[in-house]
């Protein structure tokens, strides 16, 4: 049922002419983004370029000032849309994990299953256990976030997203708050998700991951998409000066 719109649209996410202003400041100046089923789209760009804002417009955590967002063909920016229903189909993973500190890992993953999807506790917990197992944390179900490492916390957050069986997951710098040695475990889970066919939009500075996992890389700057293409194209043949200098600054040579 959650996939009822799949047939109707070739795209999981479509965003057209997205503008977003904060007061006088225009953070997004007309961005178009389409994501096909099972595609992994990577968004890169300097700080303040509007990457997070763009991502957050896709599930309306940020309301676009102008433009249209569709999820599996359904326009979610139009009036009368039940945003809580739509958000069940759009997972989101945050830089700061944002796990609920008063709940165990299992509680974190099963809360929305129970209270949003209205599953019985046992059914929700079975599903939550399965999701935790998938991110390699089967044995941590009873632990609270403070008892987990950053990498484990982020994997619980990913489990929380996948347990809802969404059509797409949005990742906003999922590894930026992690110690370098913990980054790998999270990327490993993301790679596994990608291989299983999950549609993903990832904002990240992990260029290596972008190179070998992304289908498409989008470079944003100043609230606009400046360049986009295959990882190969973006990283080996940057055309705009802005992308060249950005790549130069992140790779450090």
């Amino acid at each position, binding site marked *: 049922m959650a996939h009822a719109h799949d047939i109707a649209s070739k795209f999981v996410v479509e965003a057209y002419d997205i503008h977003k202003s904060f007061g006088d400041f225009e953070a997004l100046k007309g961005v178009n983004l389409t994501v096909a089923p099972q595609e992994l789209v990577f968004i890169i760009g300097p700080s303040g370029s509007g990457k997070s804002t763009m991502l957050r417009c896709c*599930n309306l*955590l940020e309301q676009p000032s102008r433009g249209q967002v569709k999820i599996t063909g359904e326009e979610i920016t139009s009036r009368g849309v039940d945003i*809580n*229903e*739509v*958000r*069940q189909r*759009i*997972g*989101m993973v*945050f830089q*700061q994990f*944002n*796990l*609920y*500190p*008063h709940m165990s890992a299992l509680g974190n993953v099963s*809360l*929305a299953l129970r*209270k*949003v999807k209205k599953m019985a506790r046992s059914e929700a917990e079975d599903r939550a256990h399965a999701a935790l197992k998938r991110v390699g944390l089967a044995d941590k179900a009873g632990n*609270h*976030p*403070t008892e987990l490492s950053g990498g484990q916390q982020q994997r619980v*957050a990913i489990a*929380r*997203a996948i347990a*809802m069986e969404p059509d797409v997951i949005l990742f906003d710098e999922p590894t930026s708050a992690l110690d370098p040695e913990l980054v790998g475990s999270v990327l490993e889970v993301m790679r596994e998700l990608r291989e299983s066919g999950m549609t993903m939009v990832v904002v990240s500075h992990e260029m290596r991951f972008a190179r070998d996992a992304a289908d498409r890389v989008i470079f944003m700057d100043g609230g606009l998409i400046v360049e986009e293409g295959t990882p190969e194209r973006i990283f080996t043949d940057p055309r705009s000066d802005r992308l060249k200098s950005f790549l130069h600054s992140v790779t450090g040579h």
Partner: protein
Amino acid sequence: MERFLDQFFNLEVMARYLPDVAAGFVVTIQLALSVIVTGLLLGLLLAVIRAFQIRPVNWLIILFVDLYRALPPLVILIIFYFGLPFIGITMSAFVIAWIVLASVLAAFAEEIYWAGITSVNKGQWEAARSTGLGFTGTLFYVVIPQAIRMTIPPLTNRTIAITKNTALASVVTVEEMLTVAQTSLAYAANTSPLTMAAIGYLLIFFPLTMASRWVETRYAWKR
């Protein structure tokens, strides 16, 4: 030493006034418990309503809270006790003391809960909302449990401070423990009844502080 013992721990005086002080103790503990339960619940209810940000409603809540925090409880008590009959409302002194003190506690508690609610990280809201949980669900399952845990220590302090005001109820003729003890003290010309009252207060407030410590450690989590 002997005179001290005689003055404060005169067993004969204690035995004589024990029934009176015990009756006062029962009144005090009834009043205290009613005030604590209703005050804390009403305060939480007001904070929850305030979270919905309905303008006129919020103004009313803020007015109520500021008024009750500004006025000394004694003044409110007297206004209610002597004022209500004029508008045709008669209630027992106990009920009036209960309503007034519970309202005072609710006013302070509302502010404390509210501070707790607003101090919950914005990321908690976003994470919950992104899973499709609505505003109310997020408030109840994610934000309020965290807010309450943060507010236990200041809430305990406030609760104890305000609950001690049960002694004020004597002004409106409630036969609570401290009044009884003072009357007995005057009759007996001996302070032993007051000692009993002191023990009575310890019996009420020690378990309260212990319960709050227990709740605090039980639900503590490190950040």
